[in-house]
Each structure stands twice: as structure tokens, then as C-alpha cells.
């Protein structure tokens, strides 16, 4: 019973990780960049939601859409200013820039809003249903629902639209895609926009489920989501979902059966193990290096 309970809680947390991890994996798949600032976009999503609810009293759905919109614009701006000029530089240069962007976002928010955690306003009164001894709250159901809907929309965009086709083409071969008349810059912008919107949704969901938000809330979930993306196979969207769910469940199993002190360590332990055993991730295929 305890196991099932932790499984349900873990899947809820994992859905949030999955939403963040998809953004990581999409960006990595298309420009081979670990977008360190992705976790901070998630944090900003949560703060946009916070102000939308507290200042303007918006209900859930408009809040969610507003945060997704703001963050996708932010994601596109970051890409334009910080990453685009470095697209042909070594990856390490871009990675350092991404770390800089991440520090910048965290500390601008901290500077303007203060370092103290804020309580996220209650959008729903929490109801708990009992299903054969396993407690499921309406917030958890909401997380599952929103994550599912967003992932279905994402799949539709990627496999059924022109821009999705362009994204897949650019991630396969940027130069060939450009020769085929695809606007690579625009495609990359759209990728950042979609990834950031998903992170914003995750931020709102976290705000509702664990109602404390602060400027540094994005660091650990960001890193864990990255681990999730690597675990599933970086660049592979279903991999990111799978990885996110596995991470969430693993984390809560550690909390449930061992000690909550080590909940953050498990992510990195998983990372190091997966990198040693199968660096391409669960769903990844081996690629030989071309000289």
C-alpha cells in the first residue's frame, strides 16, 4: 500500500519533471545545448502565475496560459540574445553562457522580489479521494490531466504540422534543412518557445502542488529534469517523458523507504550510473563517433 501510494505521488512529481525535461530535450535535440536557464524559466513561470493570481485574481486556466505565453517570449528572447550569436562556437562556450543566463535570471528575480519564499495562492481547495487505500488528491489529478493534454498537443505539433516537420528536420541536419528552404532560425525560436511554455506550465503546477515559490526553486528541478532527459535519451521526447516519470518515482521511493535527506542525491546517483552504463539513455541508440 505504502508502495502504491509513493508510486502515485512519484508519478505526479514525475509528470512535472517530464514537462521540464521535454524542454531540455527539445533544445538539446535541435542545437546541442544544455539550456541551463531552463530551470529558471520554470521558476519565472511560477512567479508569473503567482502575480496573475494575487494581483489580478485570474482563475487557473488563464493563469496557466499567461505564464506559458510570457515564458515562451522570454525563452525566445534569451535564445536571440545569448545563444544565437554562439551557435557556431564550441559547445562549452554556449554552456558557460547558459550558466550565466541562469544566474542572471535567478538573481534579477531575487533582487526585485527578495529571497524569501512566497506562498503560492490556493487556486483549488484540496480534496483527497481514496481509491482502495491509495490517496489521490484533486491537485495530483490536475497535474496528470494538464501534463497529458500538453503532451498530446506537443505530439500533434511535432508530427502533424509544418513547423513540427521543420523541427524534426533541423534536429536531424541543420545544413540540409536550410538547403531545403527551412528557416532554421525561426524553427529554433519556436523550439525554445514551446520548451519554455512547457516549463512555465510545470512551474504553475508545482506552485499549486507544493505551494512555496522562491527565486532559486528552479535550480534543483532543472537539474533533475536534465537528468531525466539524459536518462530517457537526450533529444528524444518520449525518452524525456519516461525519464521524468522514472525520476519522480525514484525520488519518492527514496523518501518513502529510506530517508528524505537523500532525495536530491538520488537524481545525481542515477545520472552517474546511467552515464556509465548506457550514456545514450534508455531509449537512445548508439551512435559511433565520426572522425
Amino acid at each position: 500500500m505504502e508502495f502504491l501510494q509513493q508510486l502515485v505521488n512519484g508519478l505526479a512529481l514525475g509528470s512535472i519533471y517530464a514537462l521540464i525535461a521535454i524542454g531540455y530535450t527539445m533544445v538539446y535535440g535541435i542545437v546541442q545545448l544544455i539550456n541551463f536557464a531552463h530551470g529558471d524559466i520554470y521558476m519565472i513561470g511560477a512567479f508569473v502565475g503567482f502575480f496573475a493570481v494575487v494581483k489580478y485574481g485570474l482563475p487557473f486556466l488563464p493563469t496557466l496560459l499567461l505564464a506559458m505565453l510570457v515564458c515562451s517570449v522570454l525563452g525566445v528572447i534569451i535564445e536571440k540574445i545569448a545563444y544565437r550569436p554562439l551557435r557556431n562556437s564550441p559547445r562549452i562556450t554556449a554552456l558557460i553562457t547558459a550558466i550565466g543566463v541562469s544566474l542572471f535570471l535567478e538573481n534579477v528575480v531575487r533582487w526585485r522580489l527578495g529571497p524569501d519564499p512566497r506562498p503560492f495562492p490556493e487556486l483549488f481547495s484540496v480534496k483527497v479521494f481514496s481509491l482502495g487505500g491509495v490517496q489521490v488528491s484533486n491537485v495530483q489529478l490536475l497535474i496528470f490531466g494538464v501534463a497529458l493534454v500538453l503532451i498530446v498537443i506537443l505530439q500533434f505539433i511535432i508530427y502533424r504540422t509544418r513547423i513540427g516537420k521543420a523541427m524534426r528536420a533541423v534536429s536531424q541536419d541543420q545544413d540540409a534543412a536550410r538547403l531545403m528552404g527551412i528557416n532554421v532560425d525561426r524553427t529554433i525560436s519556436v523550439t525554445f518557445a514551446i520548451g519554455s511554455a512547457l516549463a512555465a506550465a510545470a512551474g504553475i503546477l508545482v506552485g499549486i502542488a507544493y505551494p512555496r515559490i522562491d527565486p532559486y526553486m528552479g535550480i534543483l528541478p532543472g537539474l533533475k529534469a536534465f537528468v531525466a532527459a539524459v536518462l530517457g535519451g537526450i533529444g528524444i521526447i518520449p525518452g524525456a517523458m519516461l525519464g521524468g516519470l522514472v525520476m519522480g518515482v525514484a525520488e519518492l521511493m527514496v523518501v518513502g523507504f529510506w530517508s528524505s535527506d537523500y532525495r536530491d542525491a538520488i537524481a545525481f546517483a542515477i545520472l552517474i550510473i546511467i552515464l556509465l552504463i548506457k550514456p545514450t539513455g534508455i531509449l537512445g541508440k548508439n551512435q559511433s563517433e565520426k572522425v
Partner: protein
Amino acid sequence: MADTNQVNQMQIANVENYPRGLRWVILVGVLLLYLGILGLKESGSLNPYHIQILCLICINIVLVVSLNLINGFTGQFSLGHAGFMAVGAYVSAFLTRNVINQLTFSGAEWLVTLEKAGLFLLVILAGALVAAFLGVLVGLPTLRLRGDYLAIATLGLGEIIRILLINLDVVGGARGYAVPKLTNFSWAFWLMVIAVLLMVNFINSTHGRACISVREDEIAAEAMGINTTRYKVMAFTLGAFFAGLSGALFAHLFVYISPQIFGFLRSIDILVMVVLGGLGSITGSITAAIFITVVMEMLRQLVELRVIIFAVILILVMLVRPQGLLGNREITDLFRRKQRGDPDEPAQHQKAV
């Protein structure tokens, strides 16, 4: 990318190209600097706070140069330097409290001072060695990873060390750990000088050249018969050793350590200094360590703004001058005899991953 991979003339400049006396000039300069600071301290121009900052500068120089050895010279991107620093700090602090402080000394005063100094040195070395051992232990498996994977793995390692320390009650856990004050300016200064000398000599040795070749082109280096894993682990271990050493000095300087001090942000601080000074320039590392340590102290009141300024510097440097302020030039290049071609024009080298 063939042109970006050309081996930099500067880096493989032969030692014989330098004037013979340069080494002595530098040593005398270092000695004069030391005596000058001591003199200022005795005359009261420098208060204990200034001395503390000077010690911190020395510690940061060791940290930055050692990270540059891994990130700049060997081209392996490590983000977990604070973790090794933490190991050195905690191991040495534990030993000081449980060994040195339990001993009773007897005999002449100078003898006791000498014994204590010797023990302190042993404690520092113990901290550094444990950090180095950990470096080998993690380096062997993780250095098979490339580029950003290694960055994340080392970042994860640093976080794991921090979390383990929080849960280790023997050393105070999250409450922190009080350490006797043993580091003074002489310790910090001379250990810094020795550490930098050792690392410069390493870089100019066969092994160091092998490390640079790994950075320039790993596949070509391997084809030339260089055991790339061996040299990567070697650089990583050496970097970890000196990070542990500076951690030990750090702990005994600030008399209090806690796991939070050695978090991800500390690794980033060190990285900023390396990047700003130039990946692959010892002179750059030293300059950046001095400059940033001083600026950080001056901006201490502005907690967030300080980091914002740092972040902006980091982004701007990467956008405008990705090789860092000094690239991979050294101050000693100024004294180098002219070679064929135009050695004053540094090749815009960057590792192509």
C-alpha cells in the same frame, strides 16, 4: 573546423626560448612581494581584514589555477570543483580537531611551533590527498564522458558531496563545523606559490603537453599514441588535489565551514574566474582571481547585484571574447625570444568539441 584546431604556437613554445634569468627574476619578485606585504602588515598599514582578503586571494588563485588545469589546459569541463574543495576542508578540519587539538605539546617554544606547523602541513596534505583520491575514483569512470555530459556529472558529484556532508553528523551536518584558526598569510602565500609552480611545471612537462594535445584534438592525440584517459584522469586528480589543498587552507582561515559554503555557486565563482582570465592561461587565472576576489569583497553588501554583474560579465565575455581576457597567453610570453612567423599574434584557438 580544421583551422581552429591548429596547435597554438604559444603553448608549445620551448622553454629554451625564454631568457635564462627569467626564473630568478620571478622568484625574487615573489619574495619581494611577500616581504613587502609582511612589512606593510607590521607597520600597521594592513589591518587583519586586509590580511584575510590577501589570504583569500591566495586560496582563490590555487583554486582557479587548478580548475584551469582541468578546464583550460585539458579541455575537460568540470563543474564540481567546490566538491573537492569541501572534501579537503572537511578532512583537514576533522583531523585538526581530533588529532592536533588532542595532542599535548611539551618542550621549547620554537620546537612546539615547529611541531604544530609540521602537523598542520600534514593535515593540509591529508585533505588534499583524500580529495585527489576521490578525484581518481570519480575521474576514472566519468572522464569517459565528453563535454557537457562531464559537466553535468561533475556538477552532480559536487551536489552529492554537499548532500552527504549535510547528513554527516560527525562533522556537524547542516549546522556547520568550527575549525581552529591555523592559516595565516605566510601559509596561504607560500602554499599558493608552491602550488602554482608545481602546476606550471606540470603544464610544461611531457605530461602537460599531452594534456594540451587532448584539449586540442582528442582523436588526433589518441592517434599519436597518447593515452587520453590517463592524462585526463591525471589532470583531474591534480586539479582535485589542489582544490583539496585550498579547501584545507580555507577552512582554517575562516574558522567555520558548512556544506552550503561549498555549493554549486562556489564552483561557478571559480569557473567565472577561470573563464574571465582565459581558459589556458595561468597568468590570466591569477589576475582574474585577484581582481574578482577584490571586487567581490567591495560589492559584499550588494548580494544579488553582485551575482547579476557576474552573470552579465560571464555572458559578455563569452559573446565578445570567448577565449577570456588573456586567451592562453602568459606574462612570460613578453620575454620570449621571437620565433619564426609572428608569435605575438596568438592563434584564436578554441577547442572544437
